[in-house]
């Protein structure tokens, strides 16, 4: 059976070149980067090379990059690290309603400790509004954390504009106000320049850009003070204790370099195929709607609602035909709650609209998309045929 992987927002295939870059650090240069002998120094050099590669991708300085275990740890360190270091200056944090769980749960944790939290609405289009940020900012605010691109619907948030707002307040004397963005779903898909965005902290991870799982980075602007959340040795300039995983770090470095060099062509490729997929789905399947703003979003992600059917039925049926996608519908992922992202953009709680996310990669081919387009309509039709809601709707139309 044909196999088509369209769940690249969940994780991507590691590039052959990335694997190759990692391999020597398993069996040849296996020293501890803290050691002063040549094995250790080789490992250290590999880490510093990777730091330079990641810094270049983000237009940062290498010393501003902290390597850690991935997006979740990066979000945790950014949010809790700022909160711990600056809580004497204020205890208010602003975030959005549809952040990644790593951000939301970190903020919830701080709220339980007495911090005040503002969760900004994202409206039907799935975009934070600047006026809401402006209205939420107080003298007590020490952190604004809003993602750069949403993981389910791909919408891009106005981080540069929020950055300008934060800079304005900082210039007016609120020196302890910081801006963090989780850019996990944006890096490698759109240009991400920490200076242009005006962020103090930025999270990203390797496995969304064809790097390995288990390694990520946090950009911490020079001069920004954070409190380490991991205690031990003096690794990563005292910001993240623990022996560095040299092979994984070599992997994130290579993946970052390839993302930088090939970003434009990858983005064009993904956008073309995504637009083709969307147009075909809308043309061939009735009662379908798209989620999220159509313009302000990353290439490669399409998110649909299919009326009258439940998302997991669609997802598993596609899986039986060899196609991997994801759903945010109620009943998926072991919960009976629909995804907080879909709720945040105003979709109803019930299973009346099955949602599917198709996320493409640089490796996706036109033939793969054609296979999806050939396969999906029959699945939707089959599930609609057995759905009692389909009949109701038709009857309502007839009335």
């Amino acid at each position, binding site marked *: 059976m044909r196999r088509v992987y369209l769940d690249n927002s969940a994780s991507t295939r590691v590039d052959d070149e990335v694997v190759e870059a990692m391999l020597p650090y398993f069996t040849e240069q296996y020293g501890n980067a803290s050691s002063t002998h040549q094995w250790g120094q080789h490992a250290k050099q590999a880490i510093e090379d990777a730091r330079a590669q990641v810094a270049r991708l983000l237009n940062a300085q290498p010393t501003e990059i902290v390597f850690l275990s991935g997006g979740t740890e990066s979000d945790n360190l950014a949010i809790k690290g700022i909160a711990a270091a600056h809580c004497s200056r204020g205890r208010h944090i602003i975030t959005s309603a549809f952040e990644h769980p790593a951000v939301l749960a970190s903020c919830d944790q701080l709220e339980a400790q007495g911090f005040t939290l503002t969760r900004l609405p994202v409206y039907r289009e799935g975009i934070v509004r600047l006026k809401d940020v402006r209205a939420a900012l107080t003298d007590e605010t020490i952190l604004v954390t809003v993602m750069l691109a949403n993981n389910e619907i791909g919408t891009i948030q106005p981080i540069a504009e929020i950055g300008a707002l934060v800079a304005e307040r900082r210039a007016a004397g609120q020196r302890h106000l910081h801006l963090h963005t989780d850019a996990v779903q944006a890096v490698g898909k759109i240009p991400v320049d920490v200076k242009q965005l005006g962020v103090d902290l930025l999270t990203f991870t390797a496995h969304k850009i064809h790097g390995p799982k288990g390694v990520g980075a946090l950009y911490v602007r020079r001069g920004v003070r954070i409190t380490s959340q991991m205690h031990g040795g003096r690794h990563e300039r005292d910001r993240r204790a623990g022996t560095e995983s040299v092979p994984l770090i070599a992997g994130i470095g290579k993946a970052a370099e390839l993302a930088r060099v090939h970003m434009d062509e990858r983005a064009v490729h993904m956008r073309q195929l995504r637009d083709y997929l969307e147009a075909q789905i809308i043309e061939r399947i009735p009662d379908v709607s798209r989620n999220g703003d159509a313009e302000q979003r990353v290439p490669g992600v399409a998110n649909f609602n299919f009326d009258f059917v439940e998302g997991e039925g669609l997802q598993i049926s596609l899986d039986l035909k060899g196609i991997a996608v994801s759903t945010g519908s109620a009943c998926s992922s072991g919960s009976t709650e629909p995804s907080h992202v879909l709720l945040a953009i105003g979709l109803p709680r019930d299973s009346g609209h099955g949602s599917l996310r198709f996320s493409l990669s640089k490796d996706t081919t036109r033939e793969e998309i054609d296979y999806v387009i050939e396969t999906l309509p029959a699945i939707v039709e089959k599930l609609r045929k057995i759905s*009692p809601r389909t009949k109701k709707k038709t009857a309502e139309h007839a009335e």
Partner: protein
Amino acid sequence: MYSPTVLAHLDQPRNAGAMEDAVSRGEATNPVCGDLLHLYLKIDAGRIVAASFQAQGCPPTIAAASVLTGMIEGLTPAQARNLAPADVTRALEYLPRNKEHCCVLAIDALRSALAAIPIEMV
């Protein structure tokens, strides 16, 4: 995640669709996730001779309804009333724990349909 039997019923649901000449129809809904199930029965000589379903819900809901329509064919309404959610779960091999409520939904729809059978047909 799902058993081969669940997947087979999702792929090819048995007895799916509304039944025009049903003598009774039952309905059940899960207020939490919004899953909706309709069950149709045809009775002849005191036995269930045909059953069909319509479902909107996750794969186990569809599979539970599908497998249940096969299980009740040939039973008297009284025998059918004795079926429990665990019987449906067993017929599907297994379900993730948090999906076992799908079989409760199927049995609820069945009992609702059984209750709607005209008294003279029981």
